[in-house]
């Protein structure tokens, strides 16, 4: 049998570049990291969502810390906040928006101040002065102090109380005292009773790196001075100032002014590198069905109590988009949202030297396309992983080990087990039945019954082709193998006179339609047209229909299959995530080979949707579900009254394909198949058979080892008197532990393999 060349070396130091545009175009589709609507609407950039989460958990200290990050004087800001966030709250679409402003007020009132931020402070070198008083100078002082500049405030008032009162006389006494103590706790140097005139200003200009003035001071000393609103900067006078009235204008102005101060202190143009400052429209998607409490918690007094605020905060649904992660077990397994995972997988392909740590996640995606359907922006993880796999193959950095078994299986399907014949007695055939490799492997009797039925009831002759459509190498990213498979299948089809393909599997149908660039029929469509054969019978209890990922976006197939199920008398129960939104069974993308653990999680997730027996129309799905112990039937088994029974192991899957081929060759075409009998007896303990299935060791591999042993006599005898023989085949060495049971009989106890080659070393 043919072999697949292992990559030559780990010392490959080239990559095939992925353009930044290609990466960005995909990565930015994911909105997971987008700000929630409330955050985006807040000019002060308050993390409303996080604050509400902390408040809902009763952690008002943390909530206050978050609020103080955006508003250095929270009681003043909350008193004057116009709450643009509430207008954007998505809950308003179903009921009341969260009472964010009232919660803010409660957080400001009940939250304990944290002293953490001021304990270890390294002051910056450049110094800043603020001249004047009022809301803007107060907020600006708070912002600049946060940035750790040595700050001096010069005002005309006689003490801090006067300075604060000039800004926020509207506060009630308790709030005023709280904010006063907050102001006094800040690292600000105050000079009171100042007479601020032109000479004073000039003096401070000389003494400080950046000078900021209140609007009143600016108008008094530089009448008619123009202030650039975007920067809060009077360029001619090199003074930072603000125009505008009210708490919000002053608070937002102070944010912008503080950034300008930051830029000026570093001798940089204040226009550049400012990032996004203004409120914006968020692209986030939120599933509003998660919303439960739609009415506001009422206030018992003028303001929320701590408990009321926490209760109201609990109504926040914490807007976030996890549509794909909710439905896909693969994304859930890696606990990463697809934007990030895709970026890491792209980066993985660009590593010149070192470990490719994302190989495993890259090879664990089933490429089923469910994420693209459930994502509000059509994020396509399959495309990311498939192109990354091809990229790694192109630079010879793709390990063969995760996919070798599947690829060898494909070569077997299109080699020893391949069969292509015209219908007996027909010179030309209008159709060719292509059941697919898994159908012959899992349910050979069903394939045979289907073919005989098609021969009998379809006019124009039906040829048969047992083989693999090439999906395996497509999924593995082995584009060169895909090309040779394409050429092989095209040439075989041409020998049959290029008949219309009747696919038995939705994935084969898709692959073969792309390969031949012609329309390919599904056997379900033909059966819908010609009617069911005699004896076709559904299940006597309701079943869940599992849509195959190969039929995603193929409404005709999905409808036809449902119609067939109805004709069969199968009562279908509704399942979440059906039709285009169906999850993969775990076979797609070769996940079952590359990462059996994730594949099992995917299968379980698919089975979570219903307790009923599963009916599917892809044999791989049927097999995966049966392996998890669920009653699982392929639609064709019901149509032809066959039952493939319990799932075959990997060796039986090969055996089934070979025997089906031989049986058909003998019965339909009267050809003698190749002798498959061994000239010695080989038995296996149950444990050996189980081990072999888990370790992907075939009975054929064991036979090859035993053949070598019989030829050379080379083996080791261990302490227990058991023999161990080995043989290097392809890219692996296989070991078999056995006992001799009579003259020509052996009992296999264990088997293992490794890919490293071991040789004797001299010296």
């Amino acid at each position, binding site marked *: 049998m043919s072999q697949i060349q292992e990559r030559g070396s780990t010392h490959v130091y080239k990559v095939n570049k992925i353009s930044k545009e290609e990466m960005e175009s995909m990565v930015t589709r994911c909105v997971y990291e987008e700000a929630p609507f409330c955050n985006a609407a807040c000019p002060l950039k308050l993390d409303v969502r996080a604050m509400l989460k902390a408040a809902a958990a009763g952690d008002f200290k943390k909530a206050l810390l978050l609020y103080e990050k955006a508003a250095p004087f929270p009681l003043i800001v909350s008193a004057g906040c116009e709450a643009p966030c509430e207008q954007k709250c998505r809950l308003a679409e179903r009921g009341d928006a969260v009472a964010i402003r009232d919660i803010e007020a409660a957080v400001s009132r009940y939250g304990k101040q944290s002293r953490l931020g001021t304990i270890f402070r390294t002051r910056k070198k450049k110094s800043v002065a603020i001249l004047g008083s009022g809301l803007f100078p107060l907020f600006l002082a708070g912002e600049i102090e946060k940035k750790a500049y040595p700050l001096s405030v010069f005002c005309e008032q006689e003490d801090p109380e006067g300075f604060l009162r000039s800004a926020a006389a509207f506060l009630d006494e308790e709030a005023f005292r709280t904010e006063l103590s907050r102001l006094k706790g800040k690292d600000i140097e105050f000079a009171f009773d100042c007479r601020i005139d032109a000479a004073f200003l000039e003096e401070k200009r000389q003494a400080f790196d950046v000078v900021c003035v209140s609007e009143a001071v600016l108008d008094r000393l530089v009448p008619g001075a123009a202030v650039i609103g975007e920067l809060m900067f009077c360029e001619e006078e090199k003074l930072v100032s603000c125009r505008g009235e009210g708490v919000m204008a002053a608070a937002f102005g102070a944010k912008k002014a503080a950034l300008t101060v930051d830029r000026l202190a570093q001798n940089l143009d204040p226009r550049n590198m400012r990032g996004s400052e203004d409120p914006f429209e968020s692209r986030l998607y939120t599933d509003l069905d998660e919303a439960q409490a739609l009415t506001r918690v009422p206030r018992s007094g003028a303001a929320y109590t701590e408990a009321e605020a926490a209760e109201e905060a609990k109504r926040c649904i914490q807007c976030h988009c996890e549509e794909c992660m909710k439905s896909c077990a693969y994304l859930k397994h890696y606990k990463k949202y697809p934007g990030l995972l895709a970026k890491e997988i792209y980066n993985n392909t660009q590593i010149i030297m070192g470990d490719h740590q994302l190989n495993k996640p890259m090879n664990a995606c089933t490429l089923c396309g469910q994420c693209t359907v459930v994502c509000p922006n059509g994020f396509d993880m399959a495309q990311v992983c498939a192109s990354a796999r091809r990229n790694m193959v192109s630079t010879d950095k793709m390990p063969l080990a995760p996919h070798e078994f599947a690829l060898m299986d494909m070569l077997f399907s299109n080699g020893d087990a391949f069969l292509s014949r015209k219908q007996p007695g027909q010179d030309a055939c209008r159709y060719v039945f292509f059941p697919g490799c898994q159908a012959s492997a899992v349910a050979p009797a069903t394939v045979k019954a289907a073919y005989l039925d098609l021969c009998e009831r379809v006019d124009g002759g039906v040829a048969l082709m047992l083989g693999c459509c090439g999906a395996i190498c497509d999924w593995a990213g082995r584009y060169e193998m895909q090309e040779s498979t394409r050429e092989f299948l095209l040439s075989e089809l041409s020998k049959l006179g290029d008949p219309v393909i009747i696919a038995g599997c939705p994935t084969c149908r898709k692959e073969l339609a792309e390969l031949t660039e012609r329309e390919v029929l599904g056997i379900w469509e033909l059966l819908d047209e010609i009617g069911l054969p005699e004896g076709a019978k559904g299940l006597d209890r309701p079943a869940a229909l599992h849509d195959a990922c190969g039929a995603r976006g193929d409404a005709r197939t999905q409808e036809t299959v449902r119609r067939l199920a109805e004709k069969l008398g199968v009562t279908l129960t509704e399942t979440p995530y059906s039709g285009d939104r169906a999850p993969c069974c775990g076979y797609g993308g070769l996940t079952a080979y590359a990462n059996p653990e994730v594949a099992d999680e995917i299968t379980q997730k698919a089975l979570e949707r219903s307790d009923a027996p599963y009916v599917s129309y892809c044999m791989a799905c049927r097999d995966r579900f049966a392996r998890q112990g669920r009653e699982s039937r392929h639609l064709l088994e019901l149509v032809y009254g066959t039952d493939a029974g319990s799932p075959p192991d990997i060796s039986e899957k090969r055996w089934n394909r070979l025997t089906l081929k031989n049986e058909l060759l003998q019965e339909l075409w009267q050809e003698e198949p190749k002798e498959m009998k061994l000239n010695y007896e080989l038995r296996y303990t149950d444990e050996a058979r189980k081990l072999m299935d888990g370790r992907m060791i075939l009975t054929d591999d064991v036979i090859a080892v035993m053949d070598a042993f019989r030829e050379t*006599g080379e083996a080791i005898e261990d302490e227990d008197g058991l023999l161990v023989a080995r043989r290097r085949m392809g890219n692996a060495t296989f070991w078999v532990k056995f006992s001799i049971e009579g003259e020509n009989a052996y009992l296999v106890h264990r088997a293992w393999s*490794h890919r490293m080659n071991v040789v004797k*070393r001299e010296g």
Partner: protein
Amino acid sequence: MAIEKNYYTIDPQGKLKCFKCGVPLIKGKAKFLYLDNGFPVELPVCPVCGFVYVPEELALGKVLSVEKALEDK
């Protein structure tokens, strides 16, 4: 004399026998080769025919983990 590096050592301690040659295996020099990398080891070897034995625990333990590490290089 330079100290020779071995990544792994198994001494058969006379418990294994070569079926073909009928002699006990000894601790001998061997080398694992994979993807253009080589690792000197000491494994049970037949002193007559040179059969190198890789026990199951080694194949599925150390060898497998090194294989995986190299595959992702």
